[in-house]
């Protein structure tokens, strides 16, 4: 496995990632963890403890709803789903991120092209 630099997560980024994951549909904590790992190809170092804390934080803010259900392999598991205000929040944060990323790319642009 080639060595890849892992990046520390910027505060608040994890929450957006979790919301984005749940936009696919309700899933359990492990499902969220797996999806983030696969999508970021391990570049982002997400600790599972931080992930679960983020889920609770989002639940408290009413952006995520938790319910117990039964998993694919018939195990009892806690499922998380996006609430309506969670979806709204995700859209806002995504737009903000896009603008932020565009601004940063615009500054870093020439050098990155040259590389």
């Amino acid at each position, binding site marked *: 496995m080639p060595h890849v630099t892992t990046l520390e997560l910027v505060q608040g980024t994890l929450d957006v990632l979790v919301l984005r994951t749940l936009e*696919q549909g309700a899933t359990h904590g492990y499902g969220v*963890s797996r999806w983030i790992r696969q999508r970021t190809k391990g570049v982002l170092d997400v600790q599972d403890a931080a992930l679960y804390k983020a889920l609770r934080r989002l639940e408290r803010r009413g952006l995520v709803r938790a319910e117990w259900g039964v998993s694919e392999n018939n195990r009892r598991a806690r499922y998380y789903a996006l609430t309506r205000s969670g979806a709204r929040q995700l859209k806002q944060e995504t737009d903000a991120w896009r603008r932020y990323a565009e601004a940063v790319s615009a500054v870093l642009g020439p050098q990155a092209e040259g590389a």
Partner: protein
Amino acid sequence: MILPRGIRRVVPWRRSRERIRADVDEEIAFHLEMRTRELIDQGSSATAARQQAEREFGNLSELRNDLMVSDAREDRKRRWLEAVQDAARDIRIAARGLARTRLFTGVAVATLGLGIGANTALFSVVDGVVLKPLPYTDAQRLVTASVGFLNAEFDLLRERSRSYDQLAAYRSGQGIGVAGIDEPVRVTGALASANLHATLGVAPVHGRGFAPEHERAGGEPVALLSHGLAAELFGEPAIAVGRTILVDGLTRTVIGVMAPSFAFPNLQTRIWLPLVLDPANAGAYWGVGGANLVGRLGPGATTEQARQELVALAAQLRLDNPLWTPREPYRADVTIEPLAERIIGSARATLLLLLGATAFVLLIACANVGNLYLVRIAARERDLAVRAALGGGTGQILRTVVLEGVVLAVCGGVLGLALAFVGLRALLPFLPADTPRLEQVALDARVLAFALLATLLAALLFSMLPVVRLLGGGLRGALQEGGRGAGESRRMRRVSRAVVVGEMALAVVLLLGATLLVRSLAALQAVDPGFSSEGVTAARVSAASRQLPSADAMRAFYARVMERITAAPGVRAAAVTGQLPFDGEFSGTAAAVEHVTTDPNELPTFKFRPVSPDYFRVLEMPLLAGRAFTEADRADALPVAIIDQTAAERFWPGESPLGRRVGRPWMNEWLTIVGVVPSVRSNDLTVDTDPAIYVPFAQQPQDAATLAIRSERSTGELAEIIRSAVRAAHPDVPVSNVRALGALVHDSVSDTRAVTLLLSGFAAVALVLGALGMYGVLAFSVQRRARELGVRLALGARPGEVRSLVLREGALLVGAGIALGVPLALAVGRTLRGLLYGVGTTDMVSLIAAPAMLGLVGLFAAFLPARRASRVDPATTLRGD
């Protein structure tokens, strides 16, 4: 992604701590297991996979704790929310149920509203007048003495006593003329020692208070104004400071304006002048009394210590007096009491009495609504029983009953608050005019809290009846009893009747109280004051000694005034006097009776009244002996007097007093008696007055005096005539209190009248509610027994027999209520003793009239259901099943 199949709520919402811990552990375990399996599938060894899964997690035990805390919080939040939603749902159900039965709800809410409204309005008065602390700094340290002191005594007590942080004095109720701005006015004011406001801990809102030099002779003449008076005189209170006004003819500078809330010693006081203490002027220093003490007790000092110290100091002061040596024991029975006690005084007993009466009304209202509610629940009993049997649970049903009760009570409470808001404005003018601290009365947070409490108490009280019944087997019984005819259990009838009997008993108490007061008022109004007030108008003319500096000036001034008034058309007779009966306080004068009683320590006190010749004609007082005064009784003629019958009978029983002498020999005054007139009451119809001495106004003129005018013209017309006559004689002398003398006499019993009116009103409400309760119970009973009554009628009973069956039941209830109520009323009636005149608390007429009234109304209430019972159609009721 589609939701996985089988997602459902597995866990009930009520979760213990253990449950939360297990859930957190299960969630983490599930994650670790899934990740481990995934890594094994990717080729790791079992051990390595497990280790990596745990490493990816980070600090596991800390996470576990965090999640538990967070889940417990979420859980609590959810449970609370669900409880609120449940309650909201139940309240909605209750409200819908109540909305379906408009008549029941309307009657219940109106009844409760009346009860709660009356209580709330009266509580706000009691709270403002009696309960709230005085609006002064640390008011519970303020005390006052039971008697007034000489100016000198106060001055020296202030210097010598150690019990107080501050000791101040005031003399209230001074009629003070204020002029120099607009039309001269007469206001009530108080003389205050310089430290009075500081002792109370209250500073003026504008300007400053008195300084020590203001109470010394030759000090700058100053005045403090009430907010209201300053606004009246100057438009804007703030600009009053520094302005000058003419106070009783002396120019004074306004140095301060008090806050609108400042009302010491009472609301009527609108101006404060310094009490002048001048040791050089022994006559005023040692000869003028009536200074009320206000002390702020020092740290650790008690009222008892202060009293002992005061008695000890008074013993020294007795000997310091240069004018005369008062007899021993001197001021030994003086007491020191909290200032609040003095100010609130007798108002407390009256107000608590009225509050007690409204509490009775609320109790009766609750009993009525309770009975109605009982009937309502009984009608739904089978429905409720079925629900209980189907698993609704008794708890759920009781919850419904109590919640319905609470919704009813809250509606009643809201209506009650509205009624109290309106009623309070209507109530205030009815309260005795001298009730202290009425300015403190308001519908504030304390009153709202009281209304809430009364509401919840009412809900508890009247929900209790159906709850007790349901718990006592009503639910089980309802299912077993089955059919409609047998539906009414004996137990419920007993409870309903007991409640009605209780209502009747409470109504008897209120009725008896009201009857006693009405009889007392009638007795009061029948008292002959000794003079005819009809057609007589009184007016105060408040000339100050500076305006009329000599006896000649006084004579001339009043002669000019009287000349103009008697010349006015429609005036039949007019007189001038010191002060008229029922027009304020009379000061008594000690006088000697020649050859009867001349010991200076045992001189009798007389009412002393300078009057002009026509005085007895104006008041239509017949001469019992001798002659009236004439214009010939001038200043330079023989000093004469007319005495009243009381004096004649006391000092010369069986003899003629004519030619005998009374007077004040220490002032070189002996007055020869030339006539005898009837005794009159003064200020208070209930009290026999001291003996009276009348002297010719011309021989003993006064600066401030009162006019009495007999005329067929209205008081308003006369007021104009009087004002122009006085203005013509002196432009700065104020005329005030132009009133019909009859109104003054009428007003002297306004306290009794007010309490009588209010209590009678409450008794009437109680009577109506009691009758309604009686009607409700009997009507319901007739409805329930329609079948039985129908059978009786079918079997040949005459309608009259059926009617008397129901009437007998009603009579039984009324009789039991009276039997229970009369002893209770006798016990409670004793609290009225202080308010009654000419009637004992065990007055036979009242003891018969009050129950008779209840009996009549009760039987009338029973008559309507009785008539219906006799008209039951046997065919209809028998076919009913």
